[in-house]
């Protein structure tokens, strides 16, 4: 385990080095690009709070992925689950606005609706596996992609705000937005909520019977069945995973954007998978990993504004990081296999 952690840290450091090289090569102002990339996200409280805010949704999706991975379910539908979360949160928020509701109860209702929507989408995959033996990895991806198409159609079609000049639903009222913690920065209650969720996931995985059962199930299904661990542990993990992704989606709607727009999730589901991979499916590792990814995002954005780096730089850098992390994870697998087969006298 120590070896794997070391491999991940080396991969992270390498990805930063690659990011620096990329900034040096791709920018006409290499030193400015490096400064903008590495230092700007921390240079002002506004920039730093923006980084924290953007990590909130990502952290939720990553926590969801961690839970699914721990149970041995490869939930590739985080993006779709986050998308249905945005739609559900927006619908409930707008309904509350229409009903005259606002404040904590209405915001909570919107978040809960997003969790239910994301969880329900994940449940389809769990049920398909339980009833028909369909692989979660495939079904979650397919259901997720279908959901994204559906959400985009709804947001840009029948639910579109006719008065607005963008493909999105109507804006939600001020009283239904997550309270800002450090105005004028976008840092909202989403970040502490995501921290609380991370704490809950860490507690669940390390300090509960269900967490132990989930881990055993994820590592050896046959063994788990033989010792009487219910396969529903896996199904519930999927539902929780989808719910967390849905909550991540709701933060996008209830935050600064304050409305559901087309393609709103922008890859947080996929990035959540990468974060979970970096974190080794551990809730505790997910927090720094999510912050790292947000830093890459924020740094690239700053570099594109301040030092003419391409706006796509963030995607390239995240891709490099993901590639290196995956390589590090795969690199440690043969040793794990060798350990598995070891039978010393």
């Amino acid at each position, binding site marked *: 385990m120590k070896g794997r952690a070391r491999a991940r840290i080396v991969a992270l450091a390498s990805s930063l080095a690659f990011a620096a090289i990329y900034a040096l090569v791709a920018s006409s102002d290499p030193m400015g690009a490096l400064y903008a990339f590495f230092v700007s996200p921390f240079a002002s409280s506004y920039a730093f709070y923006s980084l924290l805010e953007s990590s909130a949704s990502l952290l939720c999706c990553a926590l969801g992925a961690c839970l699914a991975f721990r149970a041995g379910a490869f939930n590739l539908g985080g993006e779709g689950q986050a998308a249905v979360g945005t739609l559900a949160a927006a619908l409930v928020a707008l309904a509350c606005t229409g009903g005259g509701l606002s404040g904590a109860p209405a915001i909570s209702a919107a978040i809960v609706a997003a969790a239910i929507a994301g969880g329900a989408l994940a449940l389809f995959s769990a049920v398909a596996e339980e009833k028909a033996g369909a692989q979660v990895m495939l079904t979650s991806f397919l259901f997720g992609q279908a959901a994204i198409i559906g959400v985009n159609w709804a947001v840009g079609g029948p639910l579109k705000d006719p008065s607005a000049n963008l493909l999105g639903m109507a804006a939600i009222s001020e009283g239904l937005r997550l309270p800002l913690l450090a105005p004028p920065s976008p840092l909202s209650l989403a970040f502490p909520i995501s921290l609380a969720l991370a704490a809950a996931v860490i507690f669940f995985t390390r300090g509960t019977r269900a*967490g132990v059962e989930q881990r055993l199930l994820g590592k*050896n299904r046959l063994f788990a069945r033989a010792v009487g*661990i219910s396969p529903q542990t896996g199904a519930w993990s999927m539902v929780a995973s989808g719910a967390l992704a849905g909550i991540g989606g709701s933060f996008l709607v209830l935050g600064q954007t304050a409305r559901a727009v087309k393609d709103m999730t922008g890859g947080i589901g996929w990035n959540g998978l990468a974060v979970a991979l970096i974190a080794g499916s551990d809730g505790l590792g997910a927090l720094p990993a999510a912050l790292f990814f947000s830093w890459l995002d924020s740094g690239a954005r700053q570099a594109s504004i301040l030092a003419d780096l391409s706006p796509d730089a963030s995607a390239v850098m995240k891709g490099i990081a993901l590639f290196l992390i995956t390589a590090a994870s795969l690199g440690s697998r043969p040793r794990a296999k060798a350990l*598995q087969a070891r*039978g010393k*006298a």
Partner: protein
Amino acid sequence: MSPVELLSCEGISKYFRDTTTLANDLIDLQVAAGERRAIIGENGAGKSTLGRILAGLAMPDSGKIRVRGASIESGSVRAAEAAGIGFVPQVSLLAGELTAAENIALGREPRAMGLFVSRRKTYVEAALLFERFGLSIDPEAPVSSLSAAERRGVEIARALARGGEVLILDEPTSILSEIESERLFGLLGRLTEEGKAIILITHRLAEVRRFADKLTVLRQGRVVADESVEQRSEEELSRLMARDAPSREAVGKGCRPPTENAARPCEPRLEPMLELRDVVLVRGAKPLRLSVRRGEVLGVAALAGNGLGRLEDYASGLVKPRSGELLIAQSPLDEARRRRLRQGLPTRFGYVPSDREARGLCLHASVRDNLLALRLREFRGRDYLGGRLRDNAALEAASGVGLVAGLRSSVASLSGGTRQRLVLGRELRADGEPGSGASVFVLAEPLQGLDLAAQALVLELIRGLADDGAAILLLDSNVEEIVAIADRAAALYRGEIAYEGPNEGESTSKRLMSAITGAAGSAV
């Protein structure tokens, strides 16, 4: 260098950081062409580690390996195979989804026109190989459908197909019956006559006497004897192997400690606790009925392919029989009830699977989590956070079977025998819910991989459980193990009960041997 020396190693050392074990400590070994070498030692003595190092599956910390005087690269399976070292591991490394022939050809598939994989050649070569070594295995059968003995045969054929001049076999008979073991030794004998060297890793002294002419005794990773087999008595050998030598009785027939209970009369007392009604084990076989009463050990023996594995599937409740049913404590066992029983509610339902690594252990979880997997409900939230209570419970379970391992260590880092102790430590608990007083155990090959002292301990534990009222179904390919402990013994042949009767010691052993081969012809 001796002119006939085939394999030698010098100063091999290996330290496992995970378990802080010095598994091999400066080991020297020389093996000549045509030699039958046994490497013996207790569980955890470092036998398998040495075998794996020689086969390139593990990297030694120090030392050199030479084949015909030429040094070979350490830690490389390819280099070892190229030098003619074949390895048959204790835990099968075959790909279950592939056929026997595909497994043999894996990585060096015969080509048609030098380009495409030739399925025909793959199967023909495998069939010829099986025929040459007298193995009756269908090359087209998926490995997952083969019995343990057949899988072992495929492993041997695979090693030989790669030009194995030195064949290392790690506990090859651990789940084979006497007859299957005899066949295996016959095959190995023929190979040595062809000039191949065989290294047999075992702790069964009877096998050493039966097969080997030279032996190396390992104790705590060190060579404590390297000599010809005739030089020592079994008692001396067992004393050499162990720090605390087992008693004369425990040595018995090599590894089978006969117990005082061997010929206990069958007492048809109390109600049946485990019943299989009208289940069909092998296609075309008559439906089978079998029951185990409270306080009774029923031992069932069979050769590979005669339905013992299927019987284990059904009796453990993991596979629902197509026809017939399984009753535990006189109630049908469905999946939900099986799960409750496995967690000890209200009847304790212990199960030691023959496939230890797949069903019996979660290899990449800790020793503690594996030991307590059936007792998770006993602990409260704070126990999961603190862990001290769980540690104590795990230590208690470990001490019951003499398991010595770090509670936080990964099970994957444990030796075969230690893994078996772990499974037994978890499963052989008598107490169910207070007041229930009833326990049912399905034990498949419970002594596999255990050294003499551990076998004696486990047999004593099983007997103790039965004396406390547990119903125990013992499924074992080894007749002697059944005779050593069972109250009643049965033999399966082609999926049907070919013999059933009280255990009367030696005479039952003979009846069982004859029944499992189909020689008895007197189905009950």
